[in-house]
Every structure is written in C-alpha cells, then in structure tokens.
C-alpha cells in the first residue's frame, strides 16, 4: 500500500487580532490531525492562538507574497530565543 498522508496548508492567527496568515504546510491523515500537527509544528514559539487548515488540493489561488511568519515571545521555553544566550560583543554577530 502506497499511501502518503495528504498535504495541508496551515493558517495561523496571532495574539494581536491580526487575520490568519499562511505559515506553511504539513502532512496529516485528516483535518483534525492536521490541526494538532500544526499546533506542534508551527506554534513552537507561541506564535498563534487560532489555526485553520485547508487541504492543499482544495486551494485554488494565486500566491501573493507572504511577508514571513509572525513571532510572539514564548513564555516557558525562553531558551528557544537567541537572546537567552548572553554572547559577548567581542565575538561579533551570531
């Protein structure tokens, strides 16, 4: 049996009332799991509060340029953020 999980396009709305934006895609057996996977994949840094998923085959649209993902500071996993690590100025940008 050759049976790839369908592809889903993921849209996430952040915490400041902005509209849902496309953040990328992922695979999942169905919509319910796609939402869960999106929560695990695309909100690792607390980026969103609401998730929409659309199966990729059902998207018919032009692709306006996305200006990149919207990032919110995470509460408990502060180490995910570069500034968690104090790096001396002498070593240059990193």
């Amino acid at each position: 049996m050759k049976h790839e999980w369908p592809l889903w396009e993921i849209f996430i709305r952040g915490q400041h009332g902005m509209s849902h934006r496309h953040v990328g895609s992922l695979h999942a057996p169905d919509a319910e799991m796609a939402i869960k996977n999106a929560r695990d994949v695309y909100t690792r840094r607390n980026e969103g509060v609401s998730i929409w998923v659309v199966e990729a085959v059902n998207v018919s649209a032009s692709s306006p340029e996305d200006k990149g993902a919207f990032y919110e500071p995470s509460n408990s996993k502060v180490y995910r953020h570069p500034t968690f690590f104090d790096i001396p100025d002498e070593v240059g940008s990193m």
Partner: protein
Amino acid sequence: MYAQMVKTAGSGVKDRDEMSEQEQDFQDRIDRGEKIEPKDWMPDNYRITLIRQIGQHAHSEVVGQLPEGNWITRAPTLERKAILLAKVQDEAGHGLYLYGAAETLGVSRDEITEDLLAGRMKYSSIFNYPTLNWADMGAVGWLVDGAAIINQVALQRTSYGPYARAMVRICKEESFHARQGYHIMMKMASGTPEQKAMAQDALNRLWYPVLMMFGPSDKESVHTAQSMAWKIKMDTNDELRQKFVDQTVQQIEYLGLELPDPNIKWNDETKQYDYSDPDWTEFFDVIKGNGPCNVDRMAARNKAWDDGKWVRDGLMAHAEKKAAAKVAAQ
C-alpha cells in the same frame, strides 16, 4: 553547505539571444528582484535544479538530527537537555518547511524521501562525521549552524518565493542554534581542564569538515553561473567560506582556544584571513559514501522509515474509515 554540490540542470548560462521570449521574461523578473511563485511559468531546468537543491537541503536537516540526537539522552543538566531537544526538534521542523517548499514544485515528500533512502539524493557531508564528546554539541551549533546561517541568510533573497519564505522562518530559528552552541563552548572553554580539552578536540575535529560544507571552489563553474543568474545560489562557495573564516577566527580567540589551523593569518593586503584548504580527497570520499558515519546515518533513516510504515498506514486507514462513515451518515 546544507545543499552542497547541487548539479545545476542544463548546460550553463544561456545568452539572451538563445532564450525564448518566455525565458527572457522570466529572467527579467528575477533580475528585477521579483519572486517566482509555484503557479508561475518557469524553465524546466530551474524547476529541476530547485527540487534537487531544496530536497538536499531538507534531507540535510533531517539527517542532521542524528549527530546531535546522539547526545540528547546524555545531556548533563535538565536545562541543557531541554535546549538540545528543542534544537534537534527545530531541525525536524526545518526539514518539514523545506519539504513543503519542494512540494510546491510538483514532487511529494515521500518521493524525495525515498530518493534519499535509496541513495539517489544526497545530504550535507558534515552529518557523516561523528559527535564524540559533549563539546561537540557546542561546536556543531556554533560552527555547523553558523556556516549554514551564512548561506541561508543570503538565500532569504532567493528568487523562488516558497524557498525564500522557508529561509526567513529558518533563519530566525537558527540564530538560537548558533548562540546556544557558542554558549556551550564558552562554558567548556572556561571549565575544568578536561572540559577545555573537549572543547579544543571538538574544534579541531570539526573545523575542516565545516569548511567542506561550502563545497569545493566553484568560481569557474558554468553550473554556478546559471544558478547565480537564477538567484538560487547567491554567492560562490569561496566567498561564503571566506566570510565564515573571517567571522569565526575572533570567536575562537575569544574562547581562548588554539586555532585549528596554524596557517590562519590575517592578510593585510586582502583584508581577510588566509587559511589552509581542507583535504578535498576526504571530501569526495565522504560524498561517495565513505565518511565515518554514512552507513550508520542511512541505516538510521531507513529504519525509522521502515519501522514507521505501519504507523503512517494505520493512521491513514483510520482517517479514511472516519471519512467514509461521515459520508455514509449524510
């Protein structure tokens, strides 16, 4: 680099008068800095080259989980364990974003995964080197991710929209990776004599393999010229490598470690550091499958894929049953 020695499809840069009108328009859009989007017309060779490049990049992220994953269960503190796990998890995420970008070009993730597992596609040579002591977790984050960032920052401006957007997302996360790595190195280099020895060992062992990540000199390559004209390669390998050396030397000095190459010297004329070339024979051996860990890495990926089949199939079968039941109920 994560996408290394990607063969550019076609026979080099076309002169403008060799291009069809469509190709000319395409090139003009790129020259104007416009992004190419999935549904736009694109030359076949552009598409083929991008699939190779993005696919290889994605495979590198996923295989790249293994050398660092090797230390998750041995991380020395709870915080280091969480940080390393979060970091290796990010690599999986990066692989996922990149597979998503490749999929917009008309291949599926499973297809190119199978190409990797069958040895038809490559991943970066760096991940065929072992991680042997805890300082390697520092050196990998600092040097390997540091080298990758140099390339990826440039690729945020690449012509293919989905690839550029994946790079933007990835670059934001990579900075965490490089900094957590350097942070480990600072701890190790200022720690006990044994810790400092681990730090020096990691630096010495990984230095040349990291320089190899950028690939052999490609200044004269016709393939490079075409990829650069398409803006899917932004700088030559030598330019990127030099940039890496120049930014890294002061970071090594700050740690108080010895330079891994006695020939690293500031050159007042060129205003950059001179350094020794890596052993390219070793590089080609690794590329051909004879690196220290090639066999183990592929075995691990194949095992995960084969052992996981029943899980993927099982969850899919359940979703289909649910969908069928829903239809029947309507």
